[in-house]
């Protein structure tokens, strides 16, 4: 094994996990994921950030595979992964699995969550689930122009306070808000902004107690696991993938 190979396969190096997910992270300083509901303009944001001309279509589920691209900002090379659009991360369809596994095991430096500003209630379901997995995220309120046209505005300060992550208003198709988005992503990636993400509160009290119990046990076994509470919830939901990942030791890699 050469020195480089040893380095890449080390549990402390996240690029081993990324490589396993099929991502080449050579020379990238930060890896950033784009997540969101279908048809919220993820591909348009992706194109606005990377300058690529990926085809964007107005129908849910256009991006069933991952698209990759990159850009530079302040001497940092940034790798951008466009995840399939999903409404949730709780089911087992292939697109949801791709998105979930990437955020969980790929551990992106920042996850940008794209939200349709005119339909935030429905979009927040996914946001809340993502925030249980990662604590480094930026919410991008896209399609602001369309929302305003339909007389809907969003109080982004309150939203940011509620979710515990920065919120940026955007209208990607008109190229509005993209510079602000880029600089916010950068600040989160460099830990200049520290997120305190919202945790799901609506569970019944007995369920909440049981989740806490399992959470404690997981944290004892895996000290420093950032998303132990979410994993506890998945185990209580008998998520076969998570059980499998525990068995084959993938979770040790999450500790790094």
């Amino acid at each position, binding site marked *: 094994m050469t020195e480089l190979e040893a380095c890449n396969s080390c549990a402390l190096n996240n690029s081993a996990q990324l490589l396993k997910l099929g991502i080449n992270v050579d020379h990238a300083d930060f890896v950033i994921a784009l997540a969101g509901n279908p048809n919220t303009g993820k591909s348009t944001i992706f194109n606005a950030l990377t300058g690529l001309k990926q085809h964007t279509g107005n*129908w*849910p*589920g256009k991006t069933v595979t991952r698209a990759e691209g990159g850009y530079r900002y302040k001497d940092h090379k940034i790798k951008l992964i466009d995840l399939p659009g999903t409404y949730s991360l709780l089911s087992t369809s292939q697109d949801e699995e791709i998105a979930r596994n990437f955020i969980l095991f790929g551990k992106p430096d920042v996850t940008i969550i794209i939200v349709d500003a005119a339909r935030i*209630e429905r979009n927040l379901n996914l946001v809340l689930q993502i925030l249980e997995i990662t604590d480094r995220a930026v919410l991008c309120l896209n399609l602001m122009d369309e929302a305003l046209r339909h*007389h809907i505005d969003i109080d982004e300060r309150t939203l940011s306070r509620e979710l515990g992550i920065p919120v940026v208003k955007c209208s990607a198709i008109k190229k509005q808000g993209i510079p602000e988005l880029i600089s916010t992503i950068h600040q989160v990636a460099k830990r200049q902004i520290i997120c305190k993400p919202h945790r799901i509160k609506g569970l019944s009290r007995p369920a909440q107690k049981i989740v806490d119990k399992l959470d404690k046990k997981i944290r004892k076994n895996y000290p420093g696991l950032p998303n132990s509470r979410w994993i506890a919830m998945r185990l209580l939901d008998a998520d076969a993938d998570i059980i499998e990942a525990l068995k084959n030791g993938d979770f040790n890699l999450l500790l790094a």
Partner: protein
Amino acid sequence: MKENDTQDLLDFASKLRWEVGENFHDNLVEGIYTDAAQIAQKTEIRQGAPNPYNFERKLDQVLTSNKYGFPIMILILSIILWLTIQGANYPSGLLASFFLEFLHPLLKLGASQIGLPWWLDGFLVDGVYLATSWVISVMLPPMAIFFPIFTLLEDFGYLPRVAFNLDSLFKKSGAHGKQALTMSMGWGCNAAGVVATRIIDSPRERLIAIITNNFSLCNGRWPTQILIATIFIGTLVPAGFSSILASITVIGVALLGVGFTFLSSWILSKTLLKGEVSTFALELPPYRTPNVWTTLYTSFIDRTLIVLWRAMVFAAPAGAVIWMISNIYINELSVANLAINWIDKFGLLFGLNGVILLAYLVAIPANEIVIPTILMLTVSQLDLTGAGDGVMFELDSTTETAALLHAGGWTLLTGINLMLFSLLHNPCSTTIYTIYKETKSWKWTLFASIMPVLLGFLVTFLITKVWHLFH
């Protein structure tokens, strides 16, 4: 962490799972919804008009209504096809005369001046070059019209409405409603349609969608349909109506494909792939004004050029193969003619002929080259003088193509059955490979490849029988 620790944790989790009860999942989902609703209420500021989506609702009521939904769908598809057929004619002729009448003689002259041996000249200029330029001149114009219009409709948000309209039919045939979306992707390219089935959660319904995607006429087959419909069906009526009738015929074949999709989905879901239909929520996205220039640009780069490139990559070697089988002789007969004579009787059983069957064999890599192959083989079979064997004819008008095919013994039956066989035959090799990659099963790949051909033979056989009853 040690292995027994993991087991310990899993045991603990399953113990707690009993405690928490089986409605934990619902409790969790409810919890998320409650949180989301609270946050939305605090942050959303609504002003003025209480019903901001009024116009869109009205549009949706029309486009997805029981009464008008289907007629509008068919009308839109007809207009696109008519524009494609009408608009492609002229530029196709221009390209053909440039490549075939202007550039081809120059290349021949150049080849003879640098002293290329006859076989290398034939192989390269008459084989590879002619097949490639035929594909460009026949395929580029229709694609450059069809894809951008289709993409504009897609960007506008019409496709999910199509899915909505077809949903109940798919449910009735035991398949997933989202199959409507993968089916319309298949109208562009079956391989893309097969990949798109990833949006279907249930493996059973996904497999149905994969197997039946081949019944969506892909862009490699639209030109075949359009040409044959123009030659054999359009000419049945006075010139003024011919392109309208040809368009209607092509739509008929496409809709027949939709019919076969439903039928085979239904049969599969009753036999090999039994199971419950899963429900799903299909979001009707808002209508958005497409960004016309961006759309035109991306559809040209993403679809037209990529598909054209693929066609050329496959056409070049196929042209070479055709030239070779037409120029390698065994006992005074070329290999192509031997093969054609051998399978001609078999082809006639299905109202087709040896040339068509051989062309479909040669064209397994890409449907796009079926027509050029048929023309080249017909020329070599008729032993027409003036052009060497296996040399692509200069067919700058459909009239000449028609004359050639009639000389090859084609009848209205041959035309109809070719259109049907083009709809019902094995997927191209790219699609077959994609099916394997997506299903990871040789069994299903084989099934998806062979089932449509058998169906094609069955249908053309029956049509031929019926035809001969009346003729």
